[in-house]
């Protein structure tokens, strides 16, 4: 069996002293379009951040193509939720996308022609080339999302982690992004999205990870997206787990 693109092993993550994910285990094969699905507050965004090593894990590990994630950051591209930044920041579309190229460069390195080409290609790929000189406050929600995706594309990564790329975007953007996903898949790239819309899940993604504080199920969409699993993901019966989480938090605060 080939090495999975992402392997999460027994991962427990605490966020502000509150465990939000318990003992997560799954692996995602290369070239997959995978969705992380679960109700509000299930820890989906946290899982994505933990996969990138942005959050300290209490136990367990994440491997990217068989190596610890911290050695492999250069092949992971992250698309944060739109709300996470200030869209009035004085910066243009092109400059944001250029961050995908130059973010890691030491300060003495100039922007190369290759960097410029990659940025233009990424802008074209998501259909916002004409907007490249716009200030970011002049963008619609869908265009903002495209800017973030273009920035990730400019990184030329192997794995794309996206936090709700379809949240609050227009139909045209959704279609464009799905088109792009297909292209990425054809190029053997791996895409992992936090996704909210159960109706489109089976159409858009061929792999799902169902979480609700713990892993409910993970696997091919056709086999995993069963009413039974969905019921387990959304149907509650987690009262006890939440209660324990709350207690752990309280005790740590008291200490």
């Amino acid at each position, binding site marked *: 069996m080939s090495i999975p693109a992402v392997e999460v092993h027994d991962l427990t993550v605490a966020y502000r002293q509150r465990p939000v994910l318990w003992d997560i285990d799954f692996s995602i094969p290369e070239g997959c379009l995978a969705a992380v699905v679960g109700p509000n507050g299930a820890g989906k965004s946290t899982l994505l951040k933990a996969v990138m090593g942005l959050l300290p894990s209490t136990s367990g590990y994440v491997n990217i193509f068989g190596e610890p994630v911290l050695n492999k*950051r250069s092949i*992971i591209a992250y698309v*944060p939720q739109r709300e996470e930044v200030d869209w009035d920041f004085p*910066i243009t579309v092109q400059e*944001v996308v250029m*961050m995908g190229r130059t973010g890691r*460069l030491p*300060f003495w390195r100039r922007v190369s022609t290759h960097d410029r080409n990659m940025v233009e290609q990424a802008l074209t790929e998501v259909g916002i080339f004409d907007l490249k000189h716009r200030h970011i406050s002049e963008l619609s929600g869908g265009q903002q999302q495209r800017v973030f995706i273009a*920035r990730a594309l400019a990184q030329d990564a192997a794995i794309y982690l996206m936090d709700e790329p379809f949240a609050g975007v227009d139909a045209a953007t959704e279609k464009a992004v799905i088109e792009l996903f297909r292209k990425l898949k054809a190029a053997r790239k791996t895409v992992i999205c936090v996704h909210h819309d159960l109706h489109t899940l089976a159409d858009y993604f061929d792999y799902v990870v169902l979480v609700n504080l713990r892993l409910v199920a993970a696997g091919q969409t056709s086999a995993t997206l069963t009413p039974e699993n969905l019921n387990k993901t959304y149907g509650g019966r987690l009262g006890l787990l939440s209660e324990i989480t709350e207690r752990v938090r309280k005790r740590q605060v008291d200490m």
Partner: protein
Amino acid sequence: MTGMIQELANFWSLSDRNVLWVLLGAALLGLSNGIIGCFAFLQRKSLIGDALAHAALPGVVFMFYFTHSRDPWLLLAGAGLSCIVAHVCSEYLIRRTKIKEDSALAIILSLSFALGVFMLSMIQKLPIPNQAGLDKILFGQAAAMNSADVKLLAISSCILVLLTLLCFRSWRLLVFDPVYATSIGLPVRWLQGALSAALVLAVVIGLQLAGVVLVAALILTPAAAARYWTNKLGTMLILAGMFGALSGVFATQVSYLAPRMPTGPWMVMAVTAIFAVSLLFAPSRGLLIRALRRHRQQLRINEENVLRTMYKLLEQHRSPLPGLDSAQILSFRSMLPQQLELVLKRLKRRSEIVQDGALINFTSSGYQHARALTRRHRLWEAYLAERLGLAADHVHRDAEEIEHILGPDLEAALLDELEQSTSDPHGRSIPRSISKEHEHE
């Protein structure tokens, strides 16, 4: 008057060494503080500058107490140290407790200021020589600047400007999107540390000139002013630096001409004046241009409303009327008579209507315009009623607001949705588009 010009000439001949030091010092301070301040401003950490300035006070007094020296480098080190302690404390409070950032900073700010004032009054009772004027650090005193102070200012400003040039790309990314910065493996903690250290340095070198209480203004106000003029961070940094330096030069001049005038407060006044001008007159972001834009928009809406009212009144009559008078329009459209007067005047000037005595009627271009507006209004009403299931008496107000925003693209989209509709929810017919009519002919 001639005396004043003479004084100004004296000032700019820079023959007075002391004037030269103060002028250089104030300009350099304004420049570097303006530049560094942009990052704090954009990170929404405006209060931090103020907190750091107050936190510097106990450090300065403490250092003086131990070394009995007024060497600016030593005092700077003392101020820097206590700023760092205060910064670490407030970060701890913010991260580890439920206290929010503003409260944490306010607590640290007042505590360190109290501590500083307390220590100041204590050492004044001790027989330490050379302590006269140490309390000037509260409000700053530019006149006392000497070459050693200016040297320190010059070196520190150079460090700050160089650091900004080196870190520009990373700091911009850090301030804009810290999570993404971490995800691509940037040393975010180090970068933030460098940024905080730069801010501490900027605050501390401003103490002698502007004083503990005012130095925060030199950090934030230039940035706030510069933000009005540009959408590019690089330009914003340059502008903020310029604003700071300019106000430094201006303040030095004022206090030269009127020796009782303190430089620091005048610097704050000058930079705030620049901010006020920016707030009012900046293109595209300034209050004035925005008010003007709103006013134009309102005029346009009034015009469109009158056109549509005229259309409605005229279409009700089978046989064409020779025209309407303003009383008829006013009975259907609630607006002041003088408002209507203005609107009619503008419409006449654009030859959308003609007036013959009291009677007003469309020109052919005015008629087409009114017809297109009515069409949009009724299409939207029909859409609301059919698709959203709103009652007929609910849709008019909504449509009133939307019709002014609907462009040809949305009109086409509406039409696709409403293939069958030929009348609005009130039973009035939706005028067909002019181009369609030509097709039929």
